[in-house]
């Protein structure tokens, strides 16, 4: 089977004031069609960079990216991207933000609106359609972004720490919601998170990245917990705890290394 996304020996080097900085080096990674993969790694290691490569927003310095067997040239039209930072258009209401993609496609206005309302209520924002982004809370903005991405029904979902701004209850609701949407209509997901528990409870596979510079995957863990899952309940199972211990053990050194490096870079 051809992979939905295949990173083939990807290296990304940024030109910087203090000389070139190689964020990720020789990353080879495959995400199968319909697979939910989480990527965890210390802060600043290059997770967003990899996602930008998968989206086609960033050209790798070397290496190639293929989606469903085709080499990617330009923007990845099969992918939806939920950005780490604020990405809504501030001059558009929540509803108009959600329907933006349909509008770009030239879809008929009334139909787009109806779809948009439907997606807003699916992410729990029914009745908030005419609010502008600055009138929404951070979590509401994230949910608007989620609806904005999902309304286009992309084959591949690229999600960069989508729920990190949410409180734990809302977060678990959204995670369950995401799992439900995903299992109804299996998409390939690359899900970036800092939260190992979130990664394990959602994914089929967890990829651990090393600390930067020259980040690469240092471990892959298959999460064979049964589905459908409830993200809150599954955390209490012994198997979950065992997986968590195993992955955390592999990560710990890298997290400490990453923290140390960030600190040194700030001091230097």
């Amino acid at each position, binding site marked *: 089977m051809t992979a939905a996304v295949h990173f083939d020996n990807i290296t990304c080097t940024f030109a910087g004031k203090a000389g070139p900085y190689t964020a990720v080096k020789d990353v080879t990674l495959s995400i199968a069609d319909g697979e939910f993969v989480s990527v965890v790694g210390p802060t600043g290691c290059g997770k967003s960079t990899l996602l930008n490569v998968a*989206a086609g*927003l960033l050209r790798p310095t070397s290496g190639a990216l293929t989606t469903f067997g085709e080499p990617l040239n330009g*923007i990845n*039209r099969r*992918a*939806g*991207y939920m*950005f780490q*930072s*604020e*990405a*809504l*258009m*501030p*001059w*558009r*209401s929540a509803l108009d933000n959600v329907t*933006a*993609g349909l*509008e*770009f*496609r030239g879809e008929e206005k009334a139909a787009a609106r109806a779809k948009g309302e439907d997606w807003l209520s699916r992410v729990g924002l029914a009745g908030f359609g005419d*609010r*502008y*982004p*600055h*009138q929404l809370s951070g979590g509401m903005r994230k949910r608007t*972004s989620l609806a*904005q*991405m999902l309304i*286009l029904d992309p084959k591949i979902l690229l999600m960069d720490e989508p729920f990190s701004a949410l409180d734990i209850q809302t977060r678990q609701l959204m995670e369950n919601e995401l799992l439900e949407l995903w299992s109804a209509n299996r998409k390939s997901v690359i899900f970036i998170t800092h939260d190992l528990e979130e990664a394990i409870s959602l994914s089929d596979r967890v990829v651990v990245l090393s600390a930067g510079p020259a980040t690469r995957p240092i471990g892959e863990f298959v999460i064979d917990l049964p589905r459908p899952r409830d993200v809150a309940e599954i955390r209490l199972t012994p198997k979950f705890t065992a997986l968590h211990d195993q992955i955390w053990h592999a990560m710990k050194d890298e997290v400490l290394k990453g923290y140390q490096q960030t600190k040194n870079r700030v001091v230097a």
Partner: protein
Amino acid sequence: MNRTKLRILQAALLVAIFAFWQVATQPGLIPPFVWPENADRAAFFFGEPSKMAQVIWAWFVTDANIYPHLWVTLQETVLAFVIGSVLGLAIGLWLGLSPTASALFDPYITAMNAMPRVVLAPIFMVWFGLGIWSKVALGVTLVFFIVFFNVYQGVKEVSPVVLNNATMLGASRKQLLRFVYLPSATSWVFSSLHTSVGMAFVGAVVGEYLGSAKGVGYLIHMAEGSFDINTVFAGILVLTGFALVLDFAVTKVEKRLLVWRPTQGDSGAL
């Protein structure tokens, strides 16, 4: 201090200023030291508020002959503002998005902005005659640069994440221009709205003052020709009031169009 009290004090200050003005220009009050030869000099130089009020009253009520002049000035201001803004927006977008063009035109833009553009007024009169268009042209040169620089800067500061997001949602380059750059640039036009409307007004009045047959600037110019200081001041007061009304209208429009922008102290409760 609460709001009403503040307003009352502000009004009282205004009355006090005019009262002082009126009293100080009465014949014989200051003159003995300053102008021993002529007791009327203070009134000659500074005018008398009571007479200004009479002039304004005649303009607006008894003769009711200022309205065509106000209308001309308003037309010139609005036209200068609209044309200058559209040009500034279009060229600002173009240069903001095209590094080659902006590198090419950069020194010329800087030079034209540095030039005191009021000196162009006589040239515009030769080109466009004494009617409203020479004044509009002058106003346009003033408005254009304010809007242009705002839009140019605004285009460069469009959030790259918002741009990337729109791109991922499938926007073509043309759609990015229409749905991201344009609304973002328009918000920059509106943030400079007060200044650019003010400049359009300055262009209109200065143009009228330098040569025309209509408009409030023309009235002032005529009065000056006959040393009628009270009419000059009356004209200035009318212009000030006119500018205040314009500014008020701009604030209203701004509030309507920029609802999406967070304002300080906005509780977000709707």
